[in-house]
């Protein structure tokens, strides 16, 4: 529903008043938005000292993401909130045109091909070519597949505008001191969603940040009934449990620095056998004895969400960002279908801790950065980032959310996809905070994830990027799925030893581009950071598990 009525539209078309000023007036008279009358700067004439797009015509070709052009004629229901914000920006930047092109920006082959041939769109999600993790993204940046926007980043002052959480994840969009991406979205951390109402029914207390996987097992068992399982997980579910202990894949205890070898890293899946066996045994017990897990080798995030939505499972593991999504099949829609307020029905808690209190790195912030086409000219980059700045960091964002709120009256819709990439976590013209929208306890969990877990040292910030990514993660995925799905007796340590051997054999074919001395220096700093971190955050873990390992394995490897 458009705020702009017919008279206003005519006035605008006659250029008797700029859209911006008009919206300021309309905003003030609109019911409920009292704040505007109090002189809130609804629309500044120009936002901050951000550079404007230059005079020559600039065409931004986008593949319908994240920005689309205005429709040619006004749609029946009026312009959407996004379109109204876009109109303002276009007014300020009349020489810029947005054009839609069809490029496969979600398909790795298609996007890589387009970038190779110079036909990529202005914006894309860098994770598509960067495997969605820090190492992959940094390799993509090192290979020049994404535009270097360091200059524009500084000119627009994004460092100050980004939230603390966004900055905690800087390894995702920075390489050294050069910047390659901005943020349209943040995934604050992974965790477990649970049905509050069912928990209450079963008489279970709400989980806290200190809960463990043994607790989860109890919960799952208690919540399993004839037509419902306690927990549903993706096909890599075992990985959550191992990650809680710092084991598996590329986690803390699984990689040992090995400067003598070519690749500099050695995989280790056989230390801590007791912990491995206990964890694997617990997972398999949950799956095959308690039968409290809904799992299948074909499950991914969507299937898990679907099962939770249908009530087939009382808990699910999924990133926290879906808590604030207002479309199907996420909890918001589920609560709506049940006709009950969301707070009553769905809760979220970060991942359970591991032995002695180790925190699961899966609950760290994940950022899917937005990258620009490396072939853009400076003027085009500026235009692209000016639009981004307006839409995500500045007035455009506030306007969109405010219009959405006025249209729906739902604070949750205004604060959807929270936390925002920008530091300002309120919306001009909307009374209320994210805590009002989503519940203080959810915000508390987010804060815990942001302030504690996301501060975990990130390898990408210490070690120089590798252009060649080394062995793929397939060998670990294989071991994980064997441990999860193989029926009967499974010799966990044999499977893990095999995965270790495979990965190391694969690594033997690579030579790192980092010289040994640089590597050792980085490694020393990295592990020292871990030392300090765990001492502060999980002292018991630090004393009983980390320090012995640090002293007996890491220090000798680094010649300390």
């Amino acid at each position: 529903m458009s705020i702009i009525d017919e008279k206003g539209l005519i006035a605008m078309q006659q250029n008797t008043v700029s859209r911006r000023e008009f919206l300021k007036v309309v905003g003030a008279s609109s019911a409920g938005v009292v704040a505007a009358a109090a002189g809130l700067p609804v629309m500044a004439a120009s936002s901050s000292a951000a550079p404007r797009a230059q005079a020559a015509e600039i065409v931004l070709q986008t593949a319908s993401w994240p920005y689309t052009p205005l429709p040619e004629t006004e749609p029946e229901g009026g312009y959407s909130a996004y379109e109204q914000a876009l109109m303002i920006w276009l007014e300020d930047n009349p020489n810029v045109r947005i054009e839609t092109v069809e490029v496969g920006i979600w398909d790795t082959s298609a996007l890589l091909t387009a970038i190779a041939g110079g036909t990529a769109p202005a914006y894309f999600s860098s994770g598509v070519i960067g495997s969605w993790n820090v190492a992959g993204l940094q390799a993509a940046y090192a290979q020049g597949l994404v535009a270097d926007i360091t200059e524009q980043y500084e000119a627009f002052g994004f460092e100050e505008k980004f939230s603390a959480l966004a900055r905690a994840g800087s390894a995702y969009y920075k390489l050294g001191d050069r910047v390659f991406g901005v943020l349209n979205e943040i995934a604050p951390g992974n965790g477990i969603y649970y049905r509050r109402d069912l928990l209450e029914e079963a008489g279970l207390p709400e989980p806290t940040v200190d809960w463990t996987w043994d607790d989860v097992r109890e919960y799952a068992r208690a919540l399993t009934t004839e037509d419902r399982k306690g927990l549903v997980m993706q096909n890599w579910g075992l990985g959550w449990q191992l990650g809680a202990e710092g084991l598996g894949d590329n986690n803390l205890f699984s990689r040992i620095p090995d400067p003598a070898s070519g690749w500099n890293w050695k995989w280790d899946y056989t230390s801590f056998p007791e912990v491995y066996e206990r964890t694997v045994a617990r997972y398999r017990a949950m799956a095959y004895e308690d039968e409290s897990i809904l799992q299948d080798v074909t499950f991914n995030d969507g299937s898990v969400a679907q099962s939770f939505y249908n009530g087939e499972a009382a808990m699910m593991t999924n990133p926290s960002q879906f808590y604030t999504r207002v479309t199907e099949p996420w909890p918001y829609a589920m609560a709506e279908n049940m006709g009950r307020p969301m707070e009553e029905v769905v809760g979220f808690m970060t991942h359970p801790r591991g032995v002695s209190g180790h925190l699961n790195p899966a609950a760290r912030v994940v950022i899917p950065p937005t990258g620009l086409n490396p072939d853009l000219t400076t003027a085009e980059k500026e235009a692209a980032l000016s639009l981004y700045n307006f839409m995500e960091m500045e007035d455009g964002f506030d306007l969109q959310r405010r219009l959405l709120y006025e249209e729906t009256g739902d604070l949750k819709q205004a604060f959807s996809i929270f936390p925002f990439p920008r530091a300002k976590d309120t919306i001009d013209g909307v009374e209320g905070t994210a805590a009002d929208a989503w519940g203080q306890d959810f915000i508390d969990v987010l804060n815990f994830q942001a302030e504690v877990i996301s501060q975990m040292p990130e390898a990408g910030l210490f070690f120089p990027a590798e252009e060649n990514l080394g062995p793929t993660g397939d060998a670990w995925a294989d071991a994980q799925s064997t441990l999860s799905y193989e029926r009967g007796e499974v010799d966990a340590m044999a499977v893990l030893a095999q995965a270790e051997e495979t990965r190391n054999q694969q690594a033997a074919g690579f030579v790192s581009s980092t010289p040994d001395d640089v590597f050792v220096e980085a490694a020393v700093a990295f592990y020292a950071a871990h030392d300090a971190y765990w001492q502060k955050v999980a002292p018991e873990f630090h004393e009983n598990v980390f320090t012995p390992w640090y002293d007996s394995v890491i220090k000798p490897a680094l010649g300390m």
Partner: protein
Amino acid sequence: MALFPKVGRKQPGVRFAWYTVVAILLLGIFLHLLPFYFMITTSFKTTQETFAIPPTLWPQEPSFKAWELIFNVTTASSSSERIRTLLPQPMYIYFRNSMIQVLGAMAISLPVTAFAAYANSKLQQGRTARWFFLFFIGTLMLPFAVTLIPSFLLTRNFPFPTPNPPLIPGTENPFPTIRIWNTPWAIIIPAGFNAFNFLLFKGFFDTIPNSIIQAARVDGGSEFNIFRRIVVPMSIPVFAVAAWFQFGALWDSFLWPLVVLQSTDVIPMSVAINNLIQAFQQAGVTNADQAMGASQAFQQALDAGLSWPGLMVLGILQTIPVFVMFIICREYLLKGVRLRGLK
């Protein structure tokens, strides 16, 4: 009914075999139709119902919402639905593009491939024929993903498989190049020879007895006339099958058009629709990182108001031309019987 004996038809043994055959054929039909039935019923469900496990056989609350959504997009470029951000052009434009590209490619490819197959089958012999055979089908043996980038670069700067043409040595000027990228030619020309159809034609031409050809040669007449007057009328069934397979393959081809076409006024239907379908399939995700990526594409579609029912509608629209083409080809396939009845 030539296989089943005319005599002794009433015998219980034959009867039993006959009914078994019919039963197997009917079972096959049933299992074959299940996905289509599923697509059609899902397109009439509400989004919520599509998530139900086990899938409901019949829509509990039939809803035309998905069909309305898609047809709003097909008829007008201005629609009140957000889905227009994902499908910027009306559907008939995509359809037109598909038809031009697919029929254009077939018009060139069928004759070119048939000629080559005939030559390899009847005009060549011995080792030459065998090497040419390998030459023609060898490219089937390498996965397409690997030649994607070189082929794509060729459409940009033919004949140089590089992002930019090299400079003429000693000057500042680049070599002249041909660019078919972002035009229908980028689909039509690379499809000019179809190795699979080559196999098909060759297999069929191999069944034609050489004596027929030889006799025609003795009669006088160029090879071309022999081909035209004798071989082609005999081969209508295989042309029909080749046309059908190529149409199906080109109509549904997704990755190549996605890469070589960009402007929304040359995009074919398969690309427009498959972009959305890929988002929902979330293929091959085996760890949390990949899941993040799959989710982003999924969300883009969801935010635009597209969900399973809408996706099914698109899938049905995508399948209808294939269906129509099949019916056309089937007629030509069965025509063969009448033409050869005399021999």
